[in-house]
């Protein structure tokens, strides 16, 4: 029995899809499968793979660095609500058309024009123990804040820089676009009903851009799980100790510093599961929105 679509449209749609499918297979599917296979082997990244079964996974669960990387990633995830609240609030402020809002929007968008390495290096100069921020603090009579040399502060420094500050500019543009779609008459009705600024923000703006916020949260999760590397590499290299060592950074260290590519693949498999769950959430969200 032939497929009805094939009867109706012929082979043409499949030919149109073919380039994308080939690219997906070559650059997504093949690496994912290879990674999974490599995670059951001992391999240096070249030469022959030696099958070792579950030993990489057993080593991983007993590796303190792995659990530290999970907890550090969890700390960074905690910055997502803060990032969302600040970004929505600032976008709402700019939407009000405060004087010079276009200039503010442009200034706040600047971090998105800079590469992650530039941002990382610049902040490593600002935040180091004898950096400009500490010089200011000391000038004001305070004592050195170990922004990068205390593990508990360093992971929070990275959270503030990457999760909150870097995303602010893009978030503003994104949320401003979403807010532009809100019917102005709802605001007028709220005004007539005597709603104040925060009531309007909470009862009108936020519910109206709910889908945008949900999408933003999912996007931020992916950023935290899979796009932190450049910032951590340039700011702290995962240190001090394992203070800012995340899952993503650990994959790099195991695979490309220790050349334990098999073991690193086991870490990658865990990251893949996290990212897959987030992607499923994202797809469901989009389906709900479409429906």
């Amino acid at each position, binding site marked *: 029995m032939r497929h009805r679509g094939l009867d109706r449209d012929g082979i043409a749609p499949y030919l149109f899809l073919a380039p994308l499918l080939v690219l997906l297979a070559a650059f997504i599917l093949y690496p994912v499968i290879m990674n999974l296979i490599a995670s059951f082997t001992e391999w240096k990244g070249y030469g022959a793979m030696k099958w070792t079964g579950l030993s990489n996974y057993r080593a991983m669960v007993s590796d303190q660095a792995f659990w530290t990387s999970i907890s550090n990633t969890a700390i960074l995830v905690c910055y997502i609500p803060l990032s969302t609240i600040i970004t929505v609030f600032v976008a709402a402020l700019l939407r009000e058309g405060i004087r010079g809002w276009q200039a503010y929007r442009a200034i706040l968008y600047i971090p998105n024009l800079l590469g992650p390495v530039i941002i990382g290096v610049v902040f490593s100069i600002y935040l180091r123990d004898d950096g400009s921020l500490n010089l200011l603090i000391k000038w004001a009579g305070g004592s050195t804040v170990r922004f990068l040399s*205390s593990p508990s502060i360093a992971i929070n420094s990275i959270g503030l820089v990457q999760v909150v500050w870097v995303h602010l500019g893009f978030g503003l543009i994104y949320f401003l676009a979403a807010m532009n779609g809100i019917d102005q008459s709802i605001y007028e009705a709220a005004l007539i009903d005597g709603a104040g600024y925060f009531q309007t923000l909470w009862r009108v703006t936020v519910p109206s851009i709910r889908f945008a916020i949900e999408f933003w949260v999912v996007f931020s999760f992916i950023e935290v799980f899979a796009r932190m590397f450049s910032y951590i590499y340039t700011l702290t290299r995962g240190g001090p100790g394992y203070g800012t060592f995340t899952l993503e950074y650990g994959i790099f260290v195991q695979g490309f510093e220790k050349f334990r590519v098999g073991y690193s693949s086991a870490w990658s498999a865990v990251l893949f599961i996290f990212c897959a769950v987030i992607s499923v959430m994202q797809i469901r969200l989009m389906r709900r929105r479409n429906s």
Partner: protein
Amino acid sequence: MIRRSILCLILVAACASFGFANGTSEASSQGPVTLTVWDFKYIPTDSLKPMQEIDALFQQKNPGVTINHVAQPGEPQYYQIIQAAATANQGPDVAMFHPGAREYGFGDILVDLTPYIQDVKNQFTAASIAMVSMDGKVGAPIKVLPMTMQGFGIYYNKDYFKKAGLDPEQAPKTAAQFLAACEKLKAAGIVPIAVGQTYTIDFLLRTLVANAFGPNVAGLKDGSVKYTDPLFRESVEFIKTLVDKGYLEKDGFTRPYFMDGINNFAAGNGGMFVGLLSDVGNWKAFSDKLGANNVGYFPTINFPDSKYTDQQVAQGAGIGYGVMKWSKNQKLAAAYAKFYTTGEGARIYAGATGAMSPNTAVTGFEANYPALKTIQQYLKGSLALDYLPMFYNGYEDDANRLCDQMFITGQLTTDQFITEYQKLITK
């Protein structure tokens, strides 16, 4: 006529084979050849100029050969690039390596250079030959020819010692003298020990471990000596004391580059610095900036209960060149590596950079540098192995992270640190 032609042919063949046996280069027998060299030292530092000079000389001596010397980033990116080349089974003809764990890890893509150096092998120190032989076993294939030997020790600024009321000709070699010197420097408003990231702690621990175990350091690898030994604990606790008392410049731990610490000390910002013998942060770098007669040196700090004293921690080989198995010009590539590590090439490199050659035929720089003279005296005395290269490929990263947790963040107790260190060496 036919007989004469055959005779001519035999004559031509004999001449050709004679020429080959006398070392006719691959270039002249096969036409122009380009040798590609990957290197993490071929960057705008003291190394670049002498390397360009050596390359030019090699090209001059080997007509038809062009050296394509490519600067690559330093560790850890460098070995990632080598790993990528190995995956593709193509890349440079010659590449720089750190002898020891790094070399052994890539041993299966490196050519055995032993046959190429038979005539000069006895010029190299026994320690350097041992280190470049696979897995450190004498008699195993030599995969890298050593350009430098490496070691660590403590440099001090004699002027600052004078200012602090210390005798500049008397190095503070005992633990008590060292602590007293730090205190006096601090009281005089001088940073006692300038810091170059956490490498300062790393290097200091290496000098102390050498002194603690002396000729038995190798036992840390095979388990006959353990980090649980009280002498290792004493070394760890001594460094902790230096950190707690503020003798190590704490702000230096977060500087972006190790070179910042070196430049800081060379600019006169610090009484002492735990530096290297070769490469960077060495006797030449400091003597040229601070004045040759203003730089003092001692190799380690002696504890009262230590069996060994004044042990100079040394790696038989610091950096060197290996020839890649995929190279189509292996013989020429080996000749290039040999040129850098012996004779004129080795002299040019050592003379310009201050790197200490493991080639005993390369000498004669100490006349103008008292600090080098001191180092050479210690090198003739008691040498102890460096323990860090004994950690398998890349595990020194874990060792450094443990040092961070012990000395900088205070997340580990001495007992936890020692336990974790012991676990690490068995991996």
